[in-house]
């Protein structure tokens, strides 16, 4: 009797393994697909994009630093992108401009124009860990991380803030800033509503939330977002205003000459 029972159990376990394995594979490819769509919606919407961006860097004591800038983005073939940034605030860095050429699969190139010494400098930095203009976002968080760096698995589907979401787990294949990321991705527009980052000890340390989503020219756009570092207590709140897509930003905006002398119509 018991012998039969044990045999039966083993059989059942084997069967379930066989059944689950292809399922696992399925959730993996599904996870990858969802992240791909999500990145397209989040980082690549439109042919180009312009917004006035207000950033509040808030330290644990509630003291703030303000960043007020114009951000222009243009998509290029092969998932490359160009970014052009002009700073209004802080007042003493006004006229500072910043240009990023983003490549999938390798660190982006950055150029900075420092008006007070009238100098353009190329900066080589690590996208994965350097902070984007002193905020809690890394460069990767701003422009996207190559999909092949992580293994993405669809964990489940659940509601987040009243919206049906895919919950996808991303685990880096090589050592990275985080050891695990869990994203809640809106099933309808594929925007990430929430992301949790876990550190080397498996502890949650950083949380991204999309706080306001508006549809602009048919593109669902996250117009308010927060990145909060739970360990340091520091957080960054970002608001996008005057969002525009498909303005026809020309290729030659992204040049060293324009960094020094940005065309007025693009930075207004």
């Amino acid at each position, binding site marked *: 009797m018991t012998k039969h029972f044990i045999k039966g159990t083993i059989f059942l376990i084997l069967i379930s393994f066989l059944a689950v394995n292809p399922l696992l594979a399925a959730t993996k490819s599904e996870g990858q697909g969802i992240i791909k769509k999500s990145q397209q919606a989040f980082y690549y919407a439109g042919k180009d994009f312009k917004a006035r961006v207000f950033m509040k860097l808030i*330290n*644990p*004591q509630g*003291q*703030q*630093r303000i960043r007020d800038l114009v951000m222009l983005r243009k998509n290029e073939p092969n998932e490359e992108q160009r970014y052009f940034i002009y700073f209004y605030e*802080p007042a*003493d*860095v006004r006229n*500072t401009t*910043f240009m990023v050429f983003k490549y999938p699969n390798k660190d982006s190139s950055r150029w*900075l124009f*420092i*008006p*007070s*010494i009238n*100098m353009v*400098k*190329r*900066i*080589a*930095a*690590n996208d994965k*860990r*350097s*902070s*984007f*203009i*002193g905020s*809690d976002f890394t460069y990767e968080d701003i422009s996207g991380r190559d999909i092949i760096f992580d293994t993405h698995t669809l964990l489940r589907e659940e509601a987040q803030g009243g919206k049906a979401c895919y919950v996808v787990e991303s685990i880096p294949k090589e*050592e990275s800033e985080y050891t695990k990321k869990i994203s809640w991705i809106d099933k309808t527009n594929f925007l990430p509503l929430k992301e949790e980052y876990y*550190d*080397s*000890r498996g502890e949650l*340390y950083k949380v991204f939330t999309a706080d306001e989503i508006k549809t602009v020219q048919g593109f669902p756009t996250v117009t308010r977002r927060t990145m909060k*570092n739970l*360990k*340091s207590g*520091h957080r960054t709140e970002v608001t996008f205003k005057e969002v525009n897509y498909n303005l026809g930003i020309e290729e030659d905006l992204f040049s060293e000459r324009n960094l020094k002398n940005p065309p007025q119509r693009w930075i207004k």
Partner: protein
Amino acid sequence: MIQNKLVEFSVNHPRLIIFITLLLSLLFGLQFPKATIDTDPKHMLPATSPVRVYNDQVEKWFGLYPDTIVLGIYNKDGIFNKDTLENITKLTGEILKMKGVAVRDVTSFTTADNVFAQNNDLQVLPLLQKIPQTQEEMEVFKSSLYNNPLLVDRLISKDGTTTAIYVPLEEGANGKVIADQLKKLVRKSGGAEEYYIAGDPVARDTFGAQMFTQMAVFSPLAGMLMFIALFIMFRNFNMVILNMSIAMISIIWSMGLLIGLKFPVHIMSSMIPVFLMSISTDSIHIFNEFCFRFRELKEKKPAIIDTMKVVGAPVSATAMATAAGFACLAFGHIIPVKVFGIFIAFGTLVIRLMSFTLIPAVLSMMKDKTLLKISQKEDIKENPTSRFLRKLGELSVKNAGLILVAGLVLLTLAIIGTAKIRINNNMVSWFKEKSEIRKADAILNSQLGGTSLGYLIVSGPGEDFFKKPGAMKYLESLQREVEKSPLVGKTTSVADYVKRINRVLHKDSPEYETIPDSGTVISQYLFLFGMSAKQSVLNNVIDYPFQKANIWVQLKTWDASAMREVINIAKNYTLRHPMPELEVKPAGIAYFNMVWNDEVLYDMIRTFIFATILVLFILILEFKSFRWGIISIIPLIFAILLVYGFIGFTGKDFDMPISVLSTLTLGMAIDFAIHFASRFKRRYMETQEPLEETLYWTVSRPGRGIIRNAVLFALGFSVMAFASLTPYITVGLFIMSTMLLSAITTLVFLPVLIKLFPKFLLFKKEVPK
């Protein structure tokens, strides 16, 4: 008198007394399982003390950690080889997984960024992105380190043999626990490297933990030694057990009360048992006298009652003086010291109560035969100790003048020595020279900038103050001034980052290693730096509104005097170069150590003076004579001055542990003079003996009790001399020598003083014709 009634009652109802005592002990003993332990010496100061409040504030302003462990990695052939770098990479990875470590701010080759110029580009990259495979790559890596002055002496030693991993701790993490994990980790890693673990949390928490374990070892050890000594003195187990029970009861009652009242057992209170054990030896005077009396009277009960009539007064007085001496600690500011003082005072009163209840009760139950056997050996004329003491008494009384002169010479020397005392504190030196902590500290201090970290917080009048070139340059020259001190290994401030950026933006040419003359340029540099590096790097040195800057000062020693020197240099600099509304304030762990050591030290000196006055007051009350009060305290003060003088001449630092001890010995060592004076006066009044004969009697009979008491006392503390922490050794030796010395000074100088100044001390009618 109540005391005499209590004795009579106890003698008549011994079983009831024993039962009540046991019942109460059981009640107090039941509290023990509730004990909580607190080993953090930081808690010596209350959380509301200004230095702790300010340090907390500074840590918030600049996102700093109160505690950082430094893991030094040394390879005598240099660290620039693949194996060592691989080890560092692996180690860092492991450390990033450790609980209690503030992961995001661990600083090592792999987690720190380097800002440097290459091919006209500005590079902000991890110091060690990947391990160099060729000799060429290794050279590039090497020069990238040495070209950045921010890294030299912090992450790489000048000779290339040493690097470090800085491991900040999360709030509440225990430094010793993490240090132990690090030790385990490096033991596994193997290789040609040597590892050194240093930093304040290691020293502090290791000290706290070791103090506890050493107390757990030494309290029973002290008890055993005293057991043996008592046995040699009385050759009778019952007597010894009775004596030890008094100690145990007082320990159980006072520790039980402490725990029951929800006080954590702190480093200080862990010493209560050893102290109470030693204090309980005061009951030796009862046994001492009882043996004499029993021999004379041959009957138990009257012998007990008589003994207590004679000894009761001094036993009471000594208990009062000891309790008062310890209770004085309650008027200080250091909470654990207060707790310690109050509960020792309580324990002392318990001992006193036992002297009038349990001791008479038990004595009355002992067999006559046993008691006779014990007291046989107590013949004053036959006992060698007594005979020796009598000779000593005769010697001092007959050469009173000479001895007084010798005493005055010694006193002068002691005062000269005391004047030489150097007040200083150094927590790392609380460990023995050969201990791992001391070695690690010495190596890292000679190789890198220094393991002791202080901050100078420079604040200006308003927001964006530090974007002005003047302010930034002020910061820089203040740093240079502070660095002139040989005790300062390295300083780092926001000015260093601005200079660094200026240089790397200008093709790494050295003439640009300066602070720009324009505020806009400085602002844009800071912005540029904040754009590329980790947030925390800039946050650690400048606050959000750019109003306060933090200069990191790495000190090469944990001497409190080093931080004091830094503060003085800064103060003098601001006086010589006044800048309106600019303020420089010290902070950081080095400063905290300086303050809490100072606080304890000066608190103790104050308490010491207060305790001296109080003890004197009690003496005057007890003897109902101002003159006798003064005369009895002289031998003790003399003994303490001798010990201080000795410390002064040896050049040993007068540090916090010594200051605590001076106060502690006072209440305990005064007992000898009380016994001597009180017994002498009583004998002198009761008999028709000449003054000299009474003095000889006092030196030889109660004197023997005093010697026994002092020896037992000294034995109790002698075990501490074998401790591995130097403050314990100091405690042991200091108390031992003060106790023995004050017993000797009492037995030698009190007779001399009484002999020389009879008119000053004795009533006219008592002055011998």
